[in-house]
């Protein structure tokens, strides 16, 4: 258990954006914050923050003043954000109206940060882009929203899943594929190329996936490194509170790893490693069936695939570059599990999920 620190809580609470907004603008500020948060959630329910090209500026007037947003051109009035997915825009500026509707400007801003700040003397402003993250601005004071979850561009934009397979596919596309998750970025020996993993990357892979699952499921306890037996820990165990259902996730990685201290290769895992993972998971599930009679458990093998062609054997020196064809050699090459078919056909194991980690291809 992490030590609870009352002084740290004191500091954390004092500097929280909500507390500061209330201190700066009282009840009207708190009302504006609630309205903006509702608007932000409604917007990101329609458009994932990851897909936004430019900036989002949402403001709610606090002190009466002339109409804000003059100079941005002709606004569009919207009752909700249902029409937004079909719109093509770089930046969007949204004024939350008193009647709950929205006045919107779809624009291409030269300096969105300046615009957001210029609105803040008379309004609470929410500003977002993928580089700056989520910020509230009031009276020219920028208040950064702490980024407590990895992988999502905005802390207010996170999908919820009921189905684990669906969530894993989303995790691949949104976080793992291009190493968008900042935890996962740490797995690379050569992050600017993404050809070699660092030695022992499994801890960071597990943490990245665990954080994602914890964020995206509502009724589930997600726990790392559960000991199914003394010799066979599984990587992640998920337990559904309501039904008692269990998911056991085994993580394997493929590719070459390098010790950054010695610059020597440490491992070279090929498809056989994924097949051994399938057998290992089958063993876990058998043990689970004996130990936890009456609980429905399903196994998921998740394979982080960082294989590249042309890197040479594990005894050779580290290559700093390979051809584009070599870098992408395994992108569409699925793993052949036919030799372990019996393990996969046992009925309580999902089809293995391969997460190909893309190299940087210029």
């Amino acid at each position, binding site marked *: 258990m992490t030590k609870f620190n009352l002084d740290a809580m004191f500091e954390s609470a004092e500097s*929280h954006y909500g507390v500061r907004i209330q201190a700066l603008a009282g009840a009207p500020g708190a009302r504006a914050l*609630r309205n903006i948060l509702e608007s932000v959630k409604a917007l990101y329910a329609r458009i994932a923050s990851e897909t936004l090209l430019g900036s989002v500026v949402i403001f709610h007037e606090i002190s009466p003043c002339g109409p804000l947003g003059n100079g941005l051109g002709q606004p569009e009035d919207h009752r909700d954000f249902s029409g937004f997915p079909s719109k093509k825009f770089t930046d969007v500026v949204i004024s939350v109206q008193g009647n709950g509707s929205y006045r919107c400007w779809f624009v291409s801003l030269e300096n969105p940060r300046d615009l957001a700040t210029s609105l803040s003397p008379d309004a609470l402003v929410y500003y977002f882009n993928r580089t700056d993250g989520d910020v509230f601005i009031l009276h020219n004071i920028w208040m950064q929203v702490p980024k*407590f979850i990895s992988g999502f561009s905005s802390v207010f934009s996170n999908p*919820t899943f009921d189905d684990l397979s669906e969530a894993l596919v989303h995790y691949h596309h949104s976080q793992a594929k291009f190493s968008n998750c900042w935890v996962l970025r740490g797995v690379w020996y050569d992050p600017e190329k993404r050809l070699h993993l660092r030695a022992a990357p499994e801890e960071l892979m597990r943490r990245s996936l665990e954080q994602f699952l914890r964020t995206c499921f*509502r009724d589930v306890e997600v726990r790392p490194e559960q000991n199914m037996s003394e010799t066979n820990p599984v990587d992640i165990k998920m337990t559904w509170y309501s039904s008692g259902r269990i998911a056991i996730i085994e993580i394997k990685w493929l590719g070459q790893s390098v010790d950054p201290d010695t610059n020597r290769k440490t491992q070279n895992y090929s498809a056989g490693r994924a097949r051994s993972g399938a057998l290992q998971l089958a063993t876990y599930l058998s043990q689970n069936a004996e130990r936890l009679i009456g609980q429905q458990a399903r196994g998921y093998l998740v394979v982080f695939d960082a294989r590249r062609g042309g890197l040479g054997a594990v005894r050779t020196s580290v290559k700093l570059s390979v051809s584009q064809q070599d870098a992408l050699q395994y992108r569409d090459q699925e793993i052949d599990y036919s030799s372990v078919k019996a393990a996969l056909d046992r009925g309580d194991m999902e089809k293995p999920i391969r997460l190909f980690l893309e190299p940087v291809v210029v």
Partner: protein
Amino acid sequence: MPACNPDAAFDALCIVSRVGASVGGAYRTEVYLFSYLSCVLYIYRQNPVATWGYDFSVTRNGLPFSAPLDHAIDVLMSGALLNEHNGKLEISESGSAELEILQSLGQNSRRVEYIDGATASLLALPMGVLRGALQQQPDLARGRKIGKTRRLFAGDHEDLYDELERLSRAIGVEFSDLMIPAVAWLAYLSRLTQE
């Protein structure tokens, strides 16, 4: 309808209605969780916990549970005021009508502020993060550590009082929207899960 704790019944209806509107249905565990968080806000506003109306325990998962609330949910379901769909509770049309009447009663209207502050924290934090944050609260974390269910607020709740007292000294208690102190407190707790 069989008898149940009226405060618990009101809270269950109100929480299911609000969480349902926000994220679509509420799991039972979420009703306990938001009820506990509402009670924390009630204490934060310097009200005595004894007047909350029903008690809580912590499960061995480190999550809050309330037997009176659990019973109230069963009673509301038997009266068709709450329905269960795909494991989640939803408020029925008659439940919404009942809630509207109950909300106008003085003793219930006072509870709405706390429930609203607690459930609105979902605007700022995803459910999984919110739950993980609460599990860091020392009294709840202790339940997980000892691995068995124990009563909360039963004379051994000094940790929570200390925390809330410190929180109120840091940021005051006069918030027009209790979502703000709730989220500030939970944001700190959620940081502990990353350390």
